[in-house]
């Protein structure tokens, strides 16, 4: 069966060039970057090159990049590290209701341990209001953490304005940019960002690698102790091949970002408009136009469950997502859609397609051909649909 992958916000395939480069550092140049001998030196050199590549993509200096095991660890380091380092100044944190769980649950963990937390609402498109951020700031606020763009509905947040506010009040500003790295130009200096989370496997790099940008001068306590790697911010022998792959992936995506974005916007709109034209009772979740990520389509299809949609699509080889995956593989209604004010049933019927560099127009056509049939079959089984159309 032909398979169509439309779940790039979950993960992406590793670029062949990236994979080939990584292989060298598994089998030939396998030294420990901390070793003094030539094996160590060649690994160290490649590691520092990767650091430069990551820094360049976000407008940082290499010294400001700390490698981690991924986005979740970087978020934890940013939030807990700030809380620990700044707790003498204050104990108030601000975040938004549509953050990734790596941010939300870390903040909630701190809230259970003596910190105070303000969780900002979002509007119907999933966007945080700058005014709400301003109102939430208190003299004891030590951290504002707002994502660059949302992973589920693609809503791009007003990061520049929030960064300006944070700067005026001397509050550490953390941005989770896992979904925007390589998709939207990021310049941490212009955007007044103090801490920025990025991840490798969303940009055609390997899994298990990420980084936290830590602006020079920002105070951050380490989470892992016991070695002196990553300027003591993150002890433990570096995942050298992974990091080198991440660096290469940054370089490659940086070169093709503008062109690829324009291409994906065309596919995105074709898919979104096609669904609206072919299927009744559909609602687009998230903003339209420039406030939306180029690769994100999220729709709620009424009277069907997203879970059944996903399974039916999978049986045809089409990979999409709905809600947020949990450890067991079953789905809960999305906290993002609920925060946007969607009622439970409609949040349950949501479906996300996230495009990537290998998707073609033919693939979109195939989805548009199959999806209406699936929806019709599921609606035939839905007592709610029956009631609604016979009202």
């Amino acid at each position, binding site marked *: 069966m032909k398979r169509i992958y439309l779940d790039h916000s979950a993960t992406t395939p590793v670029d062949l060039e990236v994979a080939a480069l990584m292989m060298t550092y598994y089998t030939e140049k396998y030294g420990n970057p901390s070793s003094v001998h030539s094996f160590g030196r060649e690994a160290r050199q490649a590691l520092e090159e990767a650091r430069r590549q990551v820094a360049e993509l976000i407008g940082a200096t290499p010294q400001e990049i700390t490698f981690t095991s991924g986005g979740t660890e970087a978020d934890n380091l940013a939030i807990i590290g700030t809380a620990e380092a700044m707790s003498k100044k204050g104990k108030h944190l601000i975040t938004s209701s549509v953050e990734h769980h790596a941010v939300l649950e870390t903040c909630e963990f701190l809230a259970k341990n003596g910190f105070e937390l303000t969780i900002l609402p979002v509007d119907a498109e999933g966007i945080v209001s700058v005014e709400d951020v301003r109102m939430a700031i208190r003299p004891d606020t030590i951290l504002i953490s707002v994502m660059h763009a949302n992973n589920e509905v693609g809503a791009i947040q007003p990061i520049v304005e929030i960064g300006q506010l944070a700067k005026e009040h001397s509050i550490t500003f953390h941005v989770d940019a896992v979904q925007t790295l390589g998709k939207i130009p990021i310049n941490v200096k212009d955007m007044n960002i103090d801490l920025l989370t990025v991840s490798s496997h969303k940009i055609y790099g390997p899994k298990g690698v990420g980084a936290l940008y830590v602006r020079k001068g920002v105070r951050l306590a380490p989470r892992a102790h016991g070695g002196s790697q990553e300027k003591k911010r993150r002890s433990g022998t570096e995942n050298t091949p992974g990091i080198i792959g991440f660096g290469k992936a940054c370089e490659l995506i940086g070169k093709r970002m503008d062109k690829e974005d324009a291409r994906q916007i065309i596919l995105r709109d074709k898919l979104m408009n096609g669904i609206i034209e072919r299927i009744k009772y559909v609602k687009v979740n998230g903003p339209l136009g420039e406030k939306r990520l180029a690769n994100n389509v999220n729709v709620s299809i009424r009277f069907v469950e997203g879970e059944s949609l996903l399974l039916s699509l999978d049986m045809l080889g089409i990979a999409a997502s709905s809600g947020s995956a949990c450890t*067991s593989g*079953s789905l809960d209604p999305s906290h993002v859609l609920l925060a946007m004010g969607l009622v439970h049933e409609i949040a349950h019927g949501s479906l996300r397609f996230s495009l990537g560099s290998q998707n073609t127009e033919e693939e979109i056509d195939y989805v548009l051909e199959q999806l209406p049939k699936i929806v019709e079959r599921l609606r035939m*089984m839905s007592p709610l649909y029956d009631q609604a159309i016979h009202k």
Partner: protein
Amino acid sequence: MTLTTKTKVVVGMSGGVDSSMAAALLQEEGYDVIGITLQVWEATGPEVEGGCCSNSAIDDARRVAFILGIPHYVMNFRSYFEETVVDYFARSYLAGETPNPCLACNKYVKFGEMLRKARGLGAEYIATGHYAHVLRDPASERFLLSNSVDTRKDQTYALYMLTQEQLAHTLFPLAKYPKEQIRQMANDRGLGVGNKPDSQEICFVIDDDYASFVRKRSSGLVKPGNFVDLKGNYLGRHQGIIYYTVGQRKGLGITFGKPMFVVGLNPESNEVVLGENSEVFTDTLWAIDLNWISIPSLKEPLKVTAKIRYNSSGVQATIYPGGKGADHEVMVLFDEPQRAVTPGQAVVFYQGNTVVGGGTIISDPRGRRSLLVHE
């Protein structure tokens, strides 16, 4: 088109040996098999080893599906399960009954919502690892439910509520096999689940401590009250009616100089009624929420074999259509008085190996246990 489309079946896979073999057998028979595991409950605290709701059970199901080479999905049934099974379970105890949550799960979850979802995925049938047999009676054209060959493992009692529509879309692939053979066949196929112990009774209650579970979910509703005798005389204090079940002797917390048994629970007065052994017996019961399988409805008295609990052997009885005419109620008159007829449990009627129908036992509608009425 030259290719023939295989009939699609969704198998509810719990990770245990029975449902794993159900999937394997259907696949061998040529069906297009899809495995589904329902996530129904998330226990707080450490996982119950071998419990059907644990992540390790899900992992087992996933692994078996992988070995068989069939697609496998985990479906989130947590809120639906809580509404239809767990809430009912607690409510029933508070109402002085002894519920059977597996019956509610079969009715609403497995053969209700799971069947509906399976049909939505394009499946003609659902299948489970129950030991039971569905067949069609050529004369009446009704779908019948009868014992599997392994009568010791027979699970028809827990399936009496299946409607004709549900039976028409249900397969029980284990019908032809005894349990020991199923275990052997699972080992022969290298499924890795052949020696797993049989699942425990109530999958969402840890250590079988149902009373603590109900108390935690119903804050303030479990209150101490009085033990009384059949005439209403005060005998002592009890901890709350949820802690007692009809027929119980041990654990009453007080001694009476002679063996005393729970003969009834009265939620209105919060009383536990105690009596002597003879008073635990009754020759009559009433049942509601009836479902008929081999017959369209009960119009006149019928001689049957009745089972009043999961593991009991059947006893001879005659069933009478209820006073209100329709199928809302039946009276069951046993040939011999039966011990500990328990409101909340099911009574299932058989003729030979075939299920006639069944319903939920209620306390005697005349307010007292029927034994007294016959005195």
